[in-house]
């Protein structure tokens, strides 16, 4: 009697385990399938379009005129545009984010931390359309009045994206700074260095790989951001020699979103081709990220 009871519960546990194993396996499968499905969609729809337009004509041509006869589908201007806007976001967002992270991790009094940290987290949760509205109503007029031009510009997009990558940069940098062993700081302080010297010469350099990771993730966010950028960048396809900080610009993402609604035929396919190029950008970033991680774990 007793023995059979035990085997019965064991049997139940085994069954339960098996079922849960399948549940976990399916959960894992869903995300993998989603990635595969998206890749297939992009490649199957995008590659033929790029082939029809011609790779060189697509990627290294700055003339975008889908409504012209004959039409031209060059996205070089948008590739360069994405790079400029992202670089601008890094220039604006990384110094502020990094200094904020240092402050939060090393200098911030506890009662202030209780305000600043949730504020940073809230910044991450604001929907991008809100950033776009803020940009269109506040940042664009600000840039127009202070720097000239019409406000819809690389600068406006960079400012908005710079703010948007702050939470990513701050939270990852902060945790990597906190992860630096306290013996480093103690050693430095013990040698007579001031607190500031210790933080900037010893602790932050020791957290280098975490900081780099935060920057790469920030770049990923900036490259892929669409809704906020479309409202502040002006979306003009600029010839390369006319691109300027205070002039409008079109990025890869905004090219897709501005024209997708009405596009048809090769025009639509060329927008998916634009998505393929964007996807390649993200893959390069992710590769850089994993290289960085494997390097830092070896150290």
């Amino acid at each position, binding site marked *: 009697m007793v023995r059979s009871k035990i085997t019965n519960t064991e049997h139940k546990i085994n069954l339960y385990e098996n079922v849960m194993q399948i549940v976990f396996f399916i959960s894992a499968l869903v995300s993998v399938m989603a990635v595969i499905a998206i890749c297939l969609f992009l490649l199957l729809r995008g590659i033929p379009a790029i082939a029809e337009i011609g790779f060189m004509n697509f990627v290294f041509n700055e003339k*975008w*005129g*889908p*409504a*012209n*006869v*004959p039409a031209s589908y060059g996205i070089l201007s948008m590739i360069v545009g994405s790079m400029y806007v992202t670089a601008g976001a890094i220039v604006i967002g990384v*110094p502020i984010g990094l*200094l904020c992270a240092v402050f939060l991790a090393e200098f911030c009094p506890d009662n202030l931390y209780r305000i600043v940290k949730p504020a940073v987290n809230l910044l991450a949760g604001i929907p991008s359309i809100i950033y776009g509205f803020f940009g*269109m*109503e506040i940042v*664009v*007029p*600000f840039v*127009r*009045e*202070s720097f000239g031009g*019409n*406000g*819809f510009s690389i600068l406006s997009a960079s400012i908005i994206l710079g703010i948007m990558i702050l939470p990513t940069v701050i939270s990852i940098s902060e945790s990597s700074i906190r992860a630096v062993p306290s013996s480093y700081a103690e050693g430095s302080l013990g040698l007579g260095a*001031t607190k*500031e*010297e210790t933080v*900037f010469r010893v602790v932050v350099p020791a957290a280098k790989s975490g900081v780099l990771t935060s920057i790469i993730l920030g770049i990923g966010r900036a490259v892929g951001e669409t809704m906020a950028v*479309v*409202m502040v960048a*002006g*979306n*003009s*396809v*600029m*010839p390369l020699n*006319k691109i300027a900080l205070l*002039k*409008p610009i*079109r990025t890869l993402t905004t090219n897709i*979103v*501005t*024209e997708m*609604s*009405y*596009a*048809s*035929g090769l*025009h639509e396919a060329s927008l998916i081709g634009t998505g393929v190029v964007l996807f390649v950008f993200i893959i390069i970033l992710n590769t850089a990220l994993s290289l960085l991680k494997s390097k830092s774990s070896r150290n």
Partner: protein
Amino acid sequence: MIKNKKVLFVVSVMILLVLAGCSKEKTSSGFSSDKEITVVARDAASGTRGAFHEIMGIIKKQGETQVDNLVVGAIEFDGTDKVITAVEGDKYAIGYISLGSVSERTKAVAVDGVKPTVENVKSGAYSVSRPFLLVTKGSENNLVKDFMKFAESAQGQKIVNDMKYIASAEASSEYTSSGMSGTIKVAGSTSVTPLMEKLQEAYQQLNPDVKFEMQSNGSSQGIKAAIDGSYDIGMSSRELKDEEAKQLNKHILAIDGIAVIVNNDNTFDGLSGSDITKIYTGEITKWSEVK
């Protein structure tokens, strides 16, 4: 310590920038005409853009080729709302939107001395307008005839008005359900599509046995499909070309005026058509050059 000074420098520069922005914003009020015009346009795939650029001669056709000469650096938006917001916020901006979307947020200017009003579009005095057409080929079958009757009836034209387009004709007769059944295949203009969908919904409520097949693929495609007979009705948001008109029956569903809008602070109340073209092609870059 050196790093500390750098931090201090960055922070003080930021504060200065913000202060500079605030103080400048306060001093600049009023419209100064020597400023550059901010040209706002729609995206390349937009029907409104296609019609406006064609009417104003921004699109240059030469034999087989066709080039949109929109000035480099013109801002492009994928929606009327964003065009309005951009023009509302920029004193020196100019944009174009469907007449139905004009509000007090911006100022719709007269073109060649004619104000953009429903009456002027109806009478044909306001030149920047486009017809929404439904085209068919040869003798129409009873089902298509019935749908056309609905579209041109009081109910159909009320939907046109509700969608803020201009009804093509004074609402004539009430439509009564015919109890028809079958399928109507419709293709064409993306601009006409929203209106067409509303009409179909209302028609199907009266005639539940009628089905629609819709393809939203642009005016030219719709006209082509009607000519080769693969679709019953083609939708067009532009006037037919001569060779197309010869082969098709034309029903004017509605008329859509396109209003040219400027900021409320702009001192111009009217522009000439040729100046608008010059602004959009970049021949005129400053408001002071506009006559």
